[in-house]
C-alpha cells in the first residue's frame, strides 16, 4: 500500500486536511503542537487504497522537540508527501518545503488558508509557484473543504521537484521565490489583531487572562449545574428510580444479584450515589454527575484551543513556570490534564527536554485532577460548603508549586526557554468545534461507562470476598494512623486505580466528617494515576522515570495527607 505523508509547519491545518481526505476524526486546534503523535487513515488513490499519515508539524528537518522528532523519522518512508503550506506565511513555510524537495520524494503542495491570505491582502500566483518548485500547487481552505477535490485530483501528478539550490543559499532562494509569486497589499488592522496585541501586553493581558478565567469557571459551573439540576437528576429520580424500584421488588429486595444490579437500598430507597449497583450508581455517576461537567469543560477548552488563546496564556504564565523548571507552554499539558490526564501526558511532547517532560508529567499526574474526578469532588465536598473546595484545590495548587520548585532543584537537566509561534486569533469554526466536542464527549462515554461499571462490579466482588476487610486491616497504620481515615477508605483507594470518579463516590457512604472528606479527596487526587494514565505515562517517560515518578507520588501523598490530617 502506498504511503502518503501530510507534512508541514505546525498549525497550518494538516489535521483538518487529513480528516477531509480520510474521514478519520482527529483533534485539530489553533496552536502549534496539537498533533504530537501520528494518526493513520486510508483514502482511494487512482483506484487503489493508500495509507495517509497525519504527521506532527515541524519547522525544519532538524528536530528540536519530541513531536518534531516523530515527524522527521516519518519523513523517510513516505511514497508521496503532501506538503501543507500556510499561505499567509509563505516565506517561513517554504523553508520546510525546500528541505523536503531535497528528499526527492514525489510531492504536492497544498496552499492552505487561502481564504485568510486573501482576507489579509496576500495574493500568491500559484501557477508561477508550481513552475518554480516543479511540483503541483493547489490552493485549499481545509476548514470549509474548498480545494480538497483539486488536491485529490492532483495527487497522481505528484513528482519530485526540480528546484536545485545550495543549502547555504536556502533563505536567499526562498526570498527569490517569494518575490516572484507573492504580492502584499497594505490594509488596516482588524479587531482580532488588536485583541491579539492586547492579550500579550502585560498591562492589558493579565486582566484579560483573569477575566477569561472567571468567565470560564462561571460558564462551566452554570452549564454543569444546570445540566445536572434540570436534566439529568430529574431523569434519574423521576423516570429511572421507579423502574429500578420495580426491578428491586422483582429481585426480592435483596440477595446477590440484587446487590450487584441495584445495590444496597438506603432507608428502603435507591440512593444513586451510595447504593453501588451496576444499574444505579454505575450509570448515575458517569451520566448524571460527571458527563455534564465533562461536556461543559470541553466546550470551553475547545473554544480556547480554536481561538488561539492558549499560546498567549503561555507567554503570560512563562515567568511562574520558570520557577518550577518549565516554561509557559507547559500550561498546555496542565489544561488538557484537567479534562483527562491521558491527553495531558501525551501533550508533554511539545516540551523539549527530559527534565521538562518529567516535571510536567509528574506534576500533572499528582496535582491535576481530571474532569471526572473534579466533578465528583465538587459534587461531594461542595455539598458541605465552598470552604472544603477551597481547601482541596488550594492544597493541590500549593503542592503543585512546592513540588515543582523542589523537582526543579533535584532533577538534573536543562530547562530551555520558551520559543513558540503565536497564531492569529481566529473565530472558532462551528463545524470543527462541534466535531471536536463530539469526539471528546463520545470518547468519554465509551471509556467511562464500561470502566465505571467494571469499577462498581469490582467493589461488590471485593466486599463479598472480604478482600477489602483484609487489605483494610493491613493498611490501617497508614490509612488510619497517618491519614486519619476509616479503614474502609482503602476500598476507594483500590478502585481509584481503575476510575477516580467512582473512587470519590465511594467515600460518600463512609460517613466521613468534613475534614476527613477533604483529606480523602486530596489523597485520591494525588496518590496514583488511573490505569489509563499509568499506561501512557509509562510509555512517555520510560520505565526508570516512571518508577521515580511513582515514588515521588506516593511520598508526596503521605506527607501532604498526613500534614493535612494533623492541621485540620
Amino acid at each position, binding site marked *: 500500500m502506498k504511503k502518503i505523508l501530510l507534512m508541514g509547519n505546525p498549525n497550518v491545518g494538516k489535521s483538518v486536511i487529513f480528516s477531509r481526505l480520510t474521514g478519520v476524526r482527529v483533534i485539530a486546534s489553533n496552536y502549534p503542537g496539537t498533533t504530537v503523535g501520528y494518526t493513520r487513515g486510508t483514502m482511494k488513490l487512482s483506484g487503489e487504497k493508500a495509507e495517509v499519515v497525519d504527521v506532527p508539524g515541524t519547522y*525544519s528537518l532538524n528536530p528540536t522537540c519530541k513531536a518534531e522528532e516523530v515527524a522527521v523519522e516519518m519523513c523517510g518512508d513516505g511514497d508521496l508527501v503532501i506538503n501543507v503550506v500556510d499561505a499567509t506565511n509563505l516565506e517561513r513555510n517554504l523553508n520546510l518545503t525546500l528541505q523536503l524537495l531535497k528528499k526527492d520524494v514525489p510531492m504536492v503542495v497544498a496552499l492552505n488558508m487561502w481564504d485568510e491570505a486573501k482576507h489579509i491582502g496576500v495574493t500568491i500566483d500559484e501557477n508561477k509557484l508550481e513552475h518554480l518548485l516543479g511540483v503541483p500547487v493547489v490552493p485549499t481552505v481545509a476548514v470549509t473543504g474548498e480545494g480538497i477535490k483539486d488536491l485529490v485530483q492532483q495527487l497522481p501528478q505528484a513528482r519530485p521537484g526540480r528546484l536545485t539550490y545550495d543549502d547555504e543559499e536556502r533563505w536567499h532562494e526562498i526570498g527569490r521565490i517569494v518575490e516572484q509569486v507573492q504580492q502584499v497589499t497594505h490594509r488596516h488592522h482588524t479587531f482580532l489583531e488588536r485583541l491579539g496585541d492586547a492579550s*500579550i501586553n502585560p498591562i492589558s493581558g493579565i486582566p484579560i487572562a483573569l477575566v477569561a478565567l472567571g468567565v470560564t469557571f462561571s460558564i462551566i459551573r452554570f452549564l454543569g449545574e444546570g445540566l445536572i439540576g434540570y436534566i439529568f437528576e430529574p431523569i434519574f429520580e423521576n423516570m429511572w428510580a421507579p423502574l429500578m424500584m420495580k426491578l428491586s421488588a422483582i429481585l426480592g429486595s435483596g440477595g446477590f444479584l440484587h446487590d450487584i444490579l441495584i445495590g444496597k437500598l438506603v432507608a428502603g430507597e435507591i440512593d444513586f450515589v451510595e447504593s453501588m449497583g451496576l444499574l444505579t450508581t454505575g450509570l448515575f455517576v458517569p451520566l448524571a454527575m460527571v458527563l455534564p461537567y465533562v461536556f461543559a469543560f470541553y466546550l470551553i477548552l475547545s473554544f480556547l484551543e480554536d481561538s488561539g488563546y492558549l499560546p498567549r496564556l503561555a*507567554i503570560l504564565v512563562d515567568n511562574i513556570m520558570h520557577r518550577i523548571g518549565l516554561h509557559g507552554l507547559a500550561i498546555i499539558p496542565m489544561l488538557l490534564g484537567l479534562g483527562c490526564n491521558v491527553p495531558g501526558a501525551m501533550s508533554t511532547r511539545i516540551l523539549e527536554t527530559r527534565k521538562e517532560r518529567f516535571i510536567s508529567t509528574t506534576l500533572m499526574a499528582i496535582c491535576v485532577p481530571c474532569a471526572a474526578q473534579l466533578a465528583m469532588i465538587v459534587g461531594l465536598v461542595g455539598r458541605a460548603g465552598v470552604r472544603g473546595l477551597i481547601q482541596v484545590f488550594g492544597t493541590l495548587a500549593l503542592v503543585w508549586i512546592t513540588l515543582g520548585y523542589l523537582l526543579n532543584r533535584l532533577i538534573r537537566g536543562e530547562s530551555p526557554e*520558551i*520559543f513558540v*509561534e503565536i497564531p*492569529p486569533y481566529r473565530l472558532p469554526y462551528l463545524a470543527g468545534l462541534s466535531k471536536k466536542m463530539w469526539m471528546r464527549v463520545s470518547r468519554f462515554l465509551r471509556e467511562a461507562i464500561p470502566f465505571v461499571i467494571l469499577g462498581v462490579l469490582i467493589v461488590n466482588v471485593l466486599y463479598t470476598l472480604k478482600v477489602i476487610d483484609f487489605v483494610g486491616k493491613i493498611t490501617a497504620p497508614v490509612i488510619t494512623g497517618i491519614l486519619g481515615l476509616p479503614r474502609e477508605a482503602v476500598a476507594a483507594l483500590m478502585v481509584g486505580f481503575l476510575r477516580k470518579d467512582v473512587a470519590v463516590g465511594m467515600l460518600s457512604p463512609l460517613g466521613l466528617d468534613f475534614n476527613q472528606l477533604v483529606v480523602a479527596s486530596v489523597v485520591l487526587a494525588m496518590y496514583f494515576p488511573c490505569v489509563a494514565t499509568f499506561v501512557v505515562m509509562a510509555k512517555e517517560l520510560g520505565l526508570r522515570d516512571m518508577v521515580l515518578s511513582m515514588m515521588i507520588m506516593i511520598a508526596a501523598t503521605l506527607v501532604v495527607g498526613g500534614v493535612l490530617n494533623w492541621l485540620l
Partner: protein
Amino acid sequence: MERVNLTMMKSGDRGTVTEINGGQRVKARLGALGIRPGAKITKKSSQLLRGPVTIGMGNTQAAIGFGMAKKIIVDLEQ
C-alpha cells in the same frame, strides 16, 4: 544606525536582525522560524521580570524567552 539586542527594543520598534549571538542550536531553532540575519522584525511586547519577548515578522508572531532574545542583535530602523 543604532545596534541593540532584542530585549532593549521598545514595543513597536522595528529593525533588521544582523546577528544571532549564540551557538549552532540556538541559530538552528531561531532560523527554523525565519529569525536570521536579514530578517525584518517588529517588537510587539515584553513581559515583566525578564519574561518572553514577542516579535512580529510578516504575518508570523513568535514569543522568545528573554535569554534567547538577548542573543538576537538588531539594527534599529529610525
